[in-house]
């Protein structure tokens, strides 16, 4: 139980100290959305001053944690233990982080209220919504950025053979936290429909 002033940047963004850029980006977008002045979740709980204070703490945390050099320096001064290594589970946010990961698997992204199929443009929208650069997906999945672009642009004629495409779609879906089988089925379905036209 710490006030915003006493929280580490990781606690402010509710991420683990080992969080990768993609997670920090996602957490930042979530925090910004949550602590927006008109946010439904905030306006009746915090005063305007408190919201402003949190907003500026979020921006500062994001600025530091997304800069490799600044983050290393921050970690060095704030997270080091006597043994010289960052603690494995130093904060209560570790728990929140875990829950968030679990919860996200059943909510949000996998939920498709409009019954919109996972097509290239849908995947792109989701990726952009969670603030993940294509380069980050590419690095994580080892799928070339060109292939990812073609998947998103639905450049069906330039996509790799089906067997490879399935593997790429699976990797891409997993990196966004989506149901891989659903993404594969729906993407291939949209591809078949396009070919018929």
């Amino acid at each position, binding site marked *: *139980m710490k006030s915003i002033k006493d929280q580490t940047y990781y606690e402010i963004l*509710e991420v683990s100290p080992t969080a990768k850029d993609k997670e920090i980006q996602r957490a930042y977008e979530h925090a910004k959305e949550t602590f927006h002045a008109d946010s*439904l*979740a905030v306006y*009746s*709980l915090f005063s305007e001053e408190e919201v402003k204070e949190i907003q500026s703490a979020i921006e500062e945390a994001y600025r530091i944690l997304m800069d490799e050099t600044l983050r290393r320096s921050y970690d060095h001064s704030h997270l080091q233990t006597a043994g010289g290594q960052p603690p494995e589970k130093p904060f*209560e946010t570790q728990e929140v982080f875990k829950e*968030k990961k679990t919860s996200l698997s059943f909510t*949000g992204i996998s939920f498709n209220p409009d019954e919109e199929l996972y097509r290239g443009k849908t995947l792109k929208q989701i990726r952009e919504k969670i603030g993940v650069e294509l380069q980050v997906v590419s690095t994580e999945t080892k799928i070339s950025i060109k292939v990812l672009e073609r998947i998103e642009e639905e450049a069906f004629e330039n996509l790799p053979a089906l067997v490879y495409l399935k593997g790429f779609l699976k990797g891409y879906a997993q990196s966004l936290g989506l149901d891989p089988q659903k993404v594969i089925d729906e993407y291939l379905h949209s591809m078949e429909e396009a070919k018929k036209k």
Partner: protein
Amino acid sequence: MGSKRVGQTQANSQKTIWTIGGGKGGSGKSFITANIGICLSKLGVRVILIDADLGGANLHTFLGISPPALTLSDFIKKRVPLLRDVLIPTAIPNLQLLTGAQDLLNAVDAKSVQKRKLVRSIQTLESDTILVDLGAGNSLSVLDFFLMSDGGILVVTPEPTSVENTYRFLKSAFYRRLRQAVSSPFVKALIDGAMDRKNERGIQNPYDLIKAVRREDEKDADRLIEEAEAFRPNLILNQVRSKKDIEIGFSIRSACLKYFGIHLHYLGYVVYDQEVNNSIRKRKPLVLENSRSRAAQCVMEIASKLANSH
């Protein structure tokens, strides 16, 4: 009270008591209580539903049964010898209903000893899980029952009024819990003052409160922090219509962490589904009437989480 895994049905094992409250009337507490209860009973869990909704006790309607003739008051007034005698069987195996909201809450409103006695009586009932529909409102009796259960569940819809009311409830429950943890009249007065943002000491939030208490008594301050960190209510977002709505659940959780320093557990959401209204009009539980509907699927997912929670 302790929690346990699904399927443990030993007569002497501890049972889990969940209370469903918070928010405003019409957020779907009774619908969720009834349908989660049915889902759990279908998983083999012995469930008792308790209708403690003072505003409108109608849990029976969600189960498709008539207003029960026997209520808790028959037991309290000794018209029947045992509490289990006022349990109403339902057509659903493993599922029973107990009504008598007024008496229950009146009793809970009574002295602490009586409250505990009532809870103990409820605990002696043969079941694995008890779900208590507290209804709307944040009277002291409702708050106490919420706090005395193994897990409190807040049902919220993604609307300003519902979220506001939920925070009001949460604040009241939070400070009441802290109040119950200390004996010092001075610290209790500080806590009472913290409920009002215009208090003369300038206590604006729980952190200010802890600081103010620490100036008086280190141990009490530590005790309050322990209590705050042990307070882990749950949240269900009902009637969601978009991804943005779903995100509100995560935002509420983040807001609670920043404001109270508490870990609110986002149990899940239930989508807005016309099938819910259809099932209520027919007086047939959704998860039985239309188990493949999207809302029913959401309820089942939440029930399975509760069943597997420790």
